[in-house]
């Protein structure tokens, strides 16, 4: 496998292009089906509120997948991801309207290693809150 992005073209501090991704109720229904995560907090407002949540919230893994797009579109080949980990720090609240919510993702190169890998720290925000923290990836570049 080979990334389009080359190890030699990256420096510590290089920023990944920031992107904003929409999240609507339909996205959550589709993600539930594709992933097998049918927890009702992700599609049933009545249930979500009954367990103390403000509204339906996105699957954390949907947010993690959107954040990965910033990484894999930057490298060119998703196959170069060696490690990827996140902590979910706040829910992405998805209202029942046509706009839904937005997740804004950015990233920065934190380390460049001699073995051809690069460490990236990602950030993700929604509705003014940091929804991911310690979002870290290690990618192997050509």
């Amino acid at each position, binding site marked *: *496998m*080979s990334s389009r992005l080359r190890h030699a073209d990256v420096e510590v501090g290089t920023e990944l292009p920031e992107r904003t991704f929409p999240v609507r109720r339909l*996205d959550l229904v*589709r993600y539930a089906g*594709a992933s097998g995560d049918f927890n009702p907090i992700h599609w049933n407002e009545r249930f979500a509120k009954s367990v103390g949540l403000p509204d339906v919230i996105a699957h954390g893994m949907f947010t993690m997948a959107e954040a990965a797009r910033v990484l*894999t579109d930057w490298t060119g080949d998703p196959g170069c991801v060696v490690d990827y*980990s996140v902590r979910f720090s706040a829910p992405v609240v998805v209202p029942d309207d046509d706009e839904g919510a937005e997740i804004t993702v950015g990233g920065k190169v934190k380390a460049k290693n001699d073995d051809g890998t690069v460490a990236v720290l990602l950030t993700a925000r929604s509705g003014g809150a940091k929804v991911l923290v310690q979002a870290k990836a290690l990618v192997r570049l050509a």
Partner: protein
Amino acid sequence: MAINPDYLGREYPAPEVYEVTRGKIREFAEAVNDPNPVYVDRAAAKAAGHPDVIAPPTFPVILGMAGSAQAIADPALGVDFSRVVHGDQSFHYTRPLHAGDVLSAVTRITGIKSLGGNELLTLETVATADDGEHVVTTSMMLVVRGE
């Protein structure tokens, strides 16, 4: 309700192998709105050096979810699923998953602890190819929110 600490280290082998198919990869990529051609176009995947279309980085959560569901289904573990939210998630890859992979998965409970009125359950799933090669290890921490 407390999580039973005796379950630390318990293993849950998947009851059957998981076959990675082009159709499931396409469905997952479409569900995360990711148009990268290596997920759906064999020629693009081969040009990038892969034997077939590959799966998005978070795809193996399907195996992790299945393993955690096996664990949580045991009432003696003591997890109230209605109070579960996702705390953290990690993937460590030897190589990407590709269509045609036949994976065996084993999920193990690697952490049980209490923190600030919540209970934290960590489950690690190791997926291995049919030739015995390690493919990916994924770990999820679930937060069972206190009443």
